[in-house]
């Protein structure tokens, strides 16, 4: 019996009935990784023996008892490397657990491997990893999306049951769309970020990759909640997301923002998303057209605010307390300058420079302050839209997965890959991408469902209703 294509509830059923032991699950998954990961390169590090030991100790009566979960290489797991796919953290071993890791351990999960990513989560293709790019399980010549491309390819390629990722401008939803899995970005403040290496602190949020919506709901129940160690996490009760999934969409109002169906969107992507909207209509949802008039400014606002915050957050990588230090520095400035020059890749350098520039004297008002104000307008657009509807339906990405190397020479083209996901982070609301079809070349297409702040229950219910009526999530890539 091969368990690697099972969902977590199916796996849990096999574990609790005694049909399989946690150690065998780890072994089967490790075999799958050995088979397909030389092609996909989704994992940066995997200690199978450690996972076996954890599996032997797993309490299978717990909600994730004996279930292996892969972790994006930006979240600290005590005793494991956490390189953020950067040379500057080569050799770093995390001295503590992130809060989400503590929660996964408490739920009985078996931590399984570190997944590849764009360096410090900056990118949309995983090509910015210092350790080489991950491949898309549906076409090995294409990118898996990013920045959490390793997590997406691992789950999409059935070499992980589920994975944690992070989403600052679409880094969970976009790769999930491109690899045909479910990618959930919770509301800002829903999940503790303690132990997550910060990129842009007003935007970053930890979330999940799974094969199905039910599993996303299950994992969110476990990782969500207030944490005294992260003052941006909010003290609100965590609903039983798995309990409200099955209520259907009859009577719900689903908004379609006209600004998300623009010139430049791939016609096959638009068709698949329009068909999904029709499916919701068929199921009894009321479809309403809404407008988010400041949508066109979201990418520009993002690349000011995210880079400003990254230039401050990445100042900590200076060769003093952890990570790489340049050899034989002649003084402290030489040490900083060369450590950072040798340790960071090109995209990280570009963003630090841009962020430093928009915060610098004389430019601060024109760039940073103005971007913060336009950010308020973008949030206001969503607030008005959610007076007319319960959730929004949009494409996740304007195109299916592009070819490796296609956009690396032009950062601006790469930034536009996140045009439909960025506004959700700027507004601090929640979004999920679910599979909604394939192009004629058999590349996955994602449907994005956006909910208001703390709207995960309804959003996941909407996602589940479509998933249950369609076959896309059951398809397995030809690896």
């Amino acid at each position, binding site marked *: 019996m091969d368990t690697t294509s099972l969902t977590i509830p199916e796996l849990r059923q096999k574990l609790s009935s005694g049909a399989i032991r946690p150690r065998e699950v780890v072994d089967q998954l490790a075999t799958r990784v050995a088979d397909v990961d030389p092609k996909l390169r989704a994992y940066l590090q995997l200690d199978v023996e450690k996972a076996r030991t954890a599996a032997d100790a797993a309490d299978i009566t717990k909600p994730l008892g004996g279930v292996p979960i892969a972790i994006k290489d930006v979240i600290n797991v005590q005793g494991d490397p956490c390189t953020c796919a950067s040379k500057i953290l080569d050799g770093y071993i995390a001295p503590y657990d992130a809060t989400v890791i503590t929660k996964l351990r408490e739920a009985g999960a078996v931590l399984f491997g570190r997944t590849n990513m764009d360096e410090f989560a900056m990118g949309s293709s995983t090509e910015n990893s210092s350790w080489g790019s991950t491949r898309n399980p549906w076409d090995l010549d294409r990118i898996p999306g990013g920045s959490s491309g390793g997590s997406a390819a691992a789950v999409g390629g059935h070499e992980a049951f589920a994975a944690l990722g992070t989403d600052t401008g679409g880094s969970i939803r976009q790769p999930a769309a491109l690899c045909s899995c479910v990618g959930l970005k919770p509301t800002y403040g829903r999940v503790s970020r303690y132990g997550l290496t910060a990129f842009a602190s007003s935007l970053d949020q930890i979330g999940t990759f799974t094969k199905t919506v039910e599993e996303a709901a299950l994992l969110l129940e476990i990782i969500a909640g207030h944490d005294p160690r992260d003052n941006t996490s909010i003290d609100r009760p965590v609903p039983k997301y798995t309990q409200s999934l099955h209520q259907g969409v009859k009577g719900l109002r689903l908004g379609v923002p006209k600004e998300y169906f623009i010139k430049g969107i791939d016609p096959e992507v638009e068709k698949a998303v329009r068909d999904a909207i029709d499916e919701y209509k068929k199921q009894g949802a009321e479809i309403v057209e809404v407008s988010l008039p400041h949508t066109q400014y979201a990418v520009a606002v993002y690349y000011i605010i995210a880079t400003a915050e990254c230039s401050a957050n990445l100042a900590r990588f200076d060769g003093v307390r952890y990570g790489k230090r340049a050899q034989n520095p002649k003084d402290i400035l030489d040490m900083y300058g060369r450590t950072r020059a040798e340790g960071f890749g*090109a995209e990280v*350098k570009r963003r630090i420079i841009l962020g*430093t520039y928009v915060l610098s004297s004389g430019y601060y008002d024109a*760039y940073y302050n103005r971007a913060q104000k336009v950010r*308020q307008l973008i949030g206001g657009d969503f607030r008005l839209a959610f007076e007319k509807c319960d959730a929004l339906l949009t494409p996740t990405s304007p195109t299916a997965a592009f070819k490796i190397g296609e956009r690396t020479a032009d950062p*601006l083209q790469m930034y536009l890959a996140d045009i439909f996901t960025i506004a959700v982070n700027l507004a601090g609301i929640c979004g999920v991408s679910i599979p909604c079809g394939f192009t004629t070349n058999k590349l996955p297409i994602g449907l994005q469902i956006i909910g208001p702040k703390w709207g995960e229950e309804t959003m996941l219910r909407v996602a589940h209703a479509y998933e249950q009526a369609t076959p896309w999530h059951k398809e397995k890539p030809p690896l």
Partner: protein
Amino acid sequence: MAEPSSDRIDVTYVADLARLRLSPEEIVVFQKQLGDVLGYVSQLAEVDVSHVSLLGDADLKNRLRLDEVRPSLPVTEALSNAPKQDNNLFVVPKMVE
């Protein structure tokens, strides 16, 4: 977007502020690429923000707690990834004469 994109930013100067030493090749490439990005973001100038406050209706409030000693990383673990250490301290090149 009329001004040449590479004039929008002095990459050498800004990289120095960011304590980032660039190669001559990087300076040329970044000058162009970041000029393009700044050209793109300059579209924000057309948005009327005269009525918008900087923080909007941010619903986050300060969270205060007592300044008490709580469990934290032991010194040896906090130093475990240090490139250079001595006597429970991080060691850096000499800064003052």
